[in-house]
């Protein structure tokens, strides 16, 4: 199962950390910042041992027991360690040893590796506006269309969540060309196609457990949609 596709599962009886509303911990902030630097090194060094897609895949394939109980960054940490150990970049022994040593001592012995992402590159990467993908296939739908989401149950990544599959809604916005990130190609139309905001009402999605005045505005790509009727 894809344990990241959780919509509607009603996990837990109340929200954690509300009303405590815990802010991000320093170590979580560091994890957030380390992750792109690790990807950058992986790519620049041509070792290609880890990518955001690898991390996403491993997060989706975790067991529910871990996925639904551990914190976000604890899960990322598990995946990063597992991947770096498997690639021979790190060993568990090195991590254990580092638990006893002050970071400054290790930093003092550090040697620059040319493939490490520089501060300038790191800041440029977060401040850059990503270009929209070039139009590659004409839009197959338009605002106002009533559309039904195709049935599917794929192995691997999709951005079509389970809770809207087979359901009917109305397109309220055309978001323009998007990359189709699915692990499996869904059609011959190619990887760049229009995405739309599709509005589903609560009764359509959840029947007697839905609310008539709840609306779920879900961004979906052309390949996921068929015109009703």
């Amino acid at each position, binding site marked *: 199962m894809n344990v990241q596709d959780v919509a509607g599962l009603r996990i837990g009886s109340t929200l954690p950390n*509300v009303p405590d509303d815990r802010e991000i911990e320093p170590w979580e902030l560091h994890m957030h910042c380390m992750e792109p630097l690790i990807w950058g090194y992986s790519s620049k060094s041509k070792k290609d041992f880890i990518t955001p897609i690898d991390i996403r895949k491993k997060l989706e394939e975790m067991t529910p027991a871990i996925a639904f109980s551990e*914190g976000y960054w604890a899960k990322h940490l598990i995946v990063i360690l597992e991947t770096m150990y498997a690639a021979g970049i790190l060993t568990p022994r090195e991590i254990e040893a580092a638990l006893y040593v002050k970071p400054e001592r290790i930093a003092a012995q550090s040697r620059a590796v040319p493939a490490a992402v520089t501060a300038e590159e790191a800041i440029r990467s977060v401040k850059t506006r990503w270009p929209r993908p070039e139009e590659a296939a004409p839009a197959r739908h338009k605002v106002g269309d009533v559309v039904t989401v195709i049935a599917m149950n794929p192995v691997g990544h999709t951005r079509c969540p389970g809770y809207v599959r087979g359901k009917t809604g109305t397109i309220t916005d055309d978001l323009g060309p998007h990359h189709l990130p699915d692990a499996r190609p869904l059609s011959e139309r190619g990887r760049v196609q229009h995405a739309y905001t599709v509005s589903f009402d609560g009764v359509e999605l959840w029947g007697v457990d839905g609310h008539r005045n709840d609306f779920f505005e879900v961004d979906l790509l052309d390949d996921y949609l068929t015109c009703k009727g």
Partner: protein
Amino acid sequence: MPHPDDKSRPAGLSIDRRGFVAAGAGAGAGALATSPVKAQTSRHSHDDHNHAHDHSHVPSDAALTAMALESVLIGKGIIDPAALAALVEHYGRDVGPHIGAKVVARAWTDPEFCAELLENGTDALWSMGIGGVLTSMIKIVANSPTDHHLVVCTLCSCYPWPVLGLPPSWYKSPEYRSRVAVDPRGVLKEFGIELSDDVKVHVWDSIADQRYMVLPERPAGTEGWSIEQLETIVTRNAMIGTEILAPQSGTAPEVQA
């Protein structure tokens, strides 16, 4: 670079911590039976005593392991400490809800900007010099007496970092992501918001590349306030949609010119 938690690093290595390190080596789910994060999220009551004491706590195994990972990667030269410091400063200080608050306060006081913001959020934000990765496409949705908006990403935890900073832990939790997609009114109640059945609730599931931010309603009692004064009352949760800003009574807050 000294780690903010370094002073609390213990001298010994617990079994739990060893288990956590081993988990990454393929020891599997069993090694994680003891939760590496529970220790850190455990609460203690704030009702029964005043807080004069230091709030330091024992860091979790995940925190210690993350710090060790950072040390090792810096030691190997895989991570440049200057690059890490630059990102920590960016995400820890430069971006955050104070950026979104500027946008909201301006929209409340400048109808022309407000119209542009709702029409093309991405360009309106870039006109203020706000943007970057993950707001290459952003839509701003406005709350009103008849429509309440809130934001989620049910497939991961997509969030508009450049305007709101990094998300709170609940936003990324399976509990929020799973429940808001079926019972948004129940989730809102946990945040203290009770909506009448006639109010439409819109849940924006930002699972493609577009990000969302909520423009909260301007609360009563803020007539005549300056943009700077208005910024002080705009909260992160109001811009996610899990808070309705309370009416203000009394005088406007003092802000530095």
